């Protein structure tokens, strides 16, 4: 992973940590990423070799993959 991807993983985990009280955390994380991240950032974090994401982020990324 590149340092940019490391940074994106950290950002995604941070988003999930701050949305823990949403009724559906992965959905809220996915929605936040969809609304505020540019397509390349999404593409980078959806790459198969990305590691270090929290379980909520992993589910969110699955939702984004399904929607794309």
């Amino acid at each position, binding site marked *: 992973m590149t340092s*940019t991807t490391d*940074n994106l993983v950290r950002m995604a985990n*941070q988003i999930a*940590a*701050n949305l823990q*009280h949403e009724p559906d955390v992965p959905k809220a994380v996915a929605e*936040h990423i969809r*609304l*505020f*991240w540019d397509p390349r950032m999404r593409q980078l974090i959806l790459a198969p070799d990305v590691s270090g994401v929290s379980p909520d982020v992993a589910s969110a990324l699955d939702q984004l993959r399904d929607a794309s």
Partner: protein
Amino acid sequence: MTYQPQSDFGTPAATSDAQITLTIDGRTVTVPAGTSVMRAAAEQGTSIPKLCATDSLSAFGSCRLCLVEIDGRRGTPASCTTPVEPGMVVHTQTPRLQKLRKGVMELYISDHPLDCLTCGANGDCELQDQAGAVGLRDVRYQPVETHLGQAKDQSNPYFDFDPSKCIVCSRCVRACDEVQGTLALTVQGRGFGSKISAGIASDNFLGSECVSCGACVQACPTATLIEKKVVEIGTPERAVVTTCAYCGVGCTFRAEMRGEQLVRMVPWKEGKANRGHSCVKGRFAWGYAQHQERILKPMIRRSIQDPWQEVSWDDALAYAASELKRISATYGKQALGGITSSRCTNEETFLVQKLVRAGFGNNNVDTCARVCHSPTGYGLKTTFGTSAGTQDFDSVEDSDVILVIGANPTDGHPVFASRMKRRLRKGAKLIVIDPRRTDLVRSPHIEAQHHLALQPGTNVAVLTAMAHTIVTEGLVNEAFVKERCDWDEYQDWASFVSEDRNSPEALEPVTKVPAADLRAAARLYATGGNGAIYYGLGVTEHSQGSSTVMAIANLAMATGNIGRRGVGVNPLRGQNNVQGACDMGSFPHELAGYRHISDAATRALFEREWGVQLESEPGLRIPNMLDAATDGVFKAIYIQGEDILQSDPNTHHVAAGLEAMECVIVHDLFLNETANYAHIFLPGSTFLEKNGTFTNAERRIQPVRKVMTPLNGYEDWEVTQKLAQALGLDWNYAHPSEIMDEIARLTPSFAGVSFDRLDQEGSLQWPVNESAPDGSPIMHVDGFVRGKGKFVVTDYVPTDERTGPRYPLLLTTGRILSQYNVGAQTRRTDNVVWHEEDLLEIHPVDAENRGIKSGDWVRLASRAGETTLRATVTERVAPGVVYTTFHHPLTQANVVTTDYSDWATNCPEYKVTAVQISPSNGPTEWQESYAKLQNNARRIAKAEAAE
């Protein structure tokens, strides 16, 4: 307009609804009860002679010049201190009054230097005017003992104090007290020995507590306090009302001119944001506009190693366009982007984002609000439905409890701070939540009831603990919540904040705020009457900046402190047009009016107007652009009016990003730090050289008027238009009013805004539309913009930035009164006498442990980088916390700050950096190499002689 002094009614306007009718010089006049006879006379057009009275100050009654006769009353009362009464019959000009006034005036003049012809105030002197008004033709008294010949105090860089010309009317002392609230001036001595003094007798103006706001100079009726520029240039011959380009208060000024030369900036008494007041920056620090370092000709260079070459505008724009086209063709259109500036006008900002979206063909546009108030946009839109503060500045006059969190208004927003302090001196209670003991915590006649000196990074914990107190102690305004907010969401939130883990006691180890103090502050806010919250970058520039904004909104909703005067949630915006830059669609995910780019209906509106297809995906934010640049996929940027190298966090990363680009276009006044990495420099124009509008922190749209020809040849909107034309876009705006017309067509909250209406009204607060044709001073009056107010659960999530053995202290950064942002403007004025370098504030305990004394050079190191600067040992900061400013590029505080940012918006976490401090004996390696790079990057090759 031709020069006319501002009207002066002698005493302040009364606000009573009751009306009183009286007769003055045979004419009847009706005025509000409480009006002085002097003001009533002025309102009917009769000017009663006066010296100690001016309508920005309470009546004083000392000069004895404004005497009148009133039927049925004995003597000759002073009209300034005599209130009107029904049926009163007043005579302002009688032989008796004439004789008395002439006698008084004769005494004044007998002790005044008669050097009118060579005096700096000749023609603009109230004493001179009044001598004429009372018909003084001769002075019978021979000078025996006088005040003449006293030494002038010329220590202040902007104004002189000549005690020989002083009539001790106390207007300056009262202005410092009533208008500014600093109380730096006093009358020293008694009787004949009375003398105006700044501070104690041994002080001069520069060494005193005077903050150089200029209120005393404005109030002075003689040449005793006079601007150095007036002495140097002469009195002005015309005046143009315009808006200050410094902070988000948005003071309006009369730019007083001789020809195209600015003589002075005088606060406009009719300005609704500043109500006739000013600070040292807006009033005096405009010399940068003519500074010798301004770049006035376009320049290009193929490589950042090369010296700059001056070229024509056509050549510079053609080169810029060809580079942008080349890069787009080579790397794809996503390799381009732009940054708008909160220092530029709404119209200029709108054009830059339009250039990126319609010209570059992507949404890679961002604004410097990214690094300051982007969490405000996110947080207030989520909770209330609008990305803006809820009040006007006048609202503070009705506040009973003022909660200031993460803001230092006496330094950052001084003119509003003066109004706030006025309200506090009248009895409003104050809560300050800040790691530092800011001046507001304790200043003359003001002392915060509660100063919660929290650990940096724990805002959310403190606010949640306050909410815990309010909910569990039954202090919620349930009627308001049930009527105005989503009840289910409220209950979820109330249940969350009520958990034991969110009590002040449970969170005290984290926040370092004594639980009892925190509970008392919460009770005061909830039960003390109208509660208003004011906040600044100490809220937003954190990893939980957006959460903190929402936690503030939660508190305001739970206590019913929204929707009327005296209450509300008020972000104090850093730069002059932060609000406007955000309104204009500068963020990569939304179009003007905060409508998401993915909304097809909104996009269609813009597509029809602009004749292009818009991308539906959000673009890159500033930090993402820099990441993409270091990854090799982002190659070109157009930056208008921003200096990201100095202002953005982690300087090494910013530099790496800029260096990786093939085309950096900087459009600015000076070769700033970002320009060290630029290939094209387009000279900018100052706010004095352009037309447009700024929108201040209270959503007030105000005109910026051109008072002189742009030294660089073009207003900034014209430069952006020329760049667009060079790229092939068919833009043909003839005036910024046409850009505003386009904004109004496309943006519902601006629908009723036009330059004509702004000229008529002076200013308008958005939304201005069919339902609010005259604007909206207070928001959410009958309901929230989003419908029901939304409570959001804001759990405290500690930042990833942690202290430890290597970096045991927490650094927080900020600004001071005399400097502004990266200092590009203020460093090029005489304001440097107050702040010639950035200093590190450190607590005595931490200093002693490290063997550091005030004035010592110290090394400030973090995980991101290190720099050196001098220390000042002070108890303003708590043990474990250090503080510095970021105004000077060779200190470059942002070498030390990190990439950590707000979870929702990527607003950098400037306020929390783990650092270590140690003694140092010289600059760091980085500082030395940066100084070389800076010198190298500013070389300008001499133009070849024409054949």
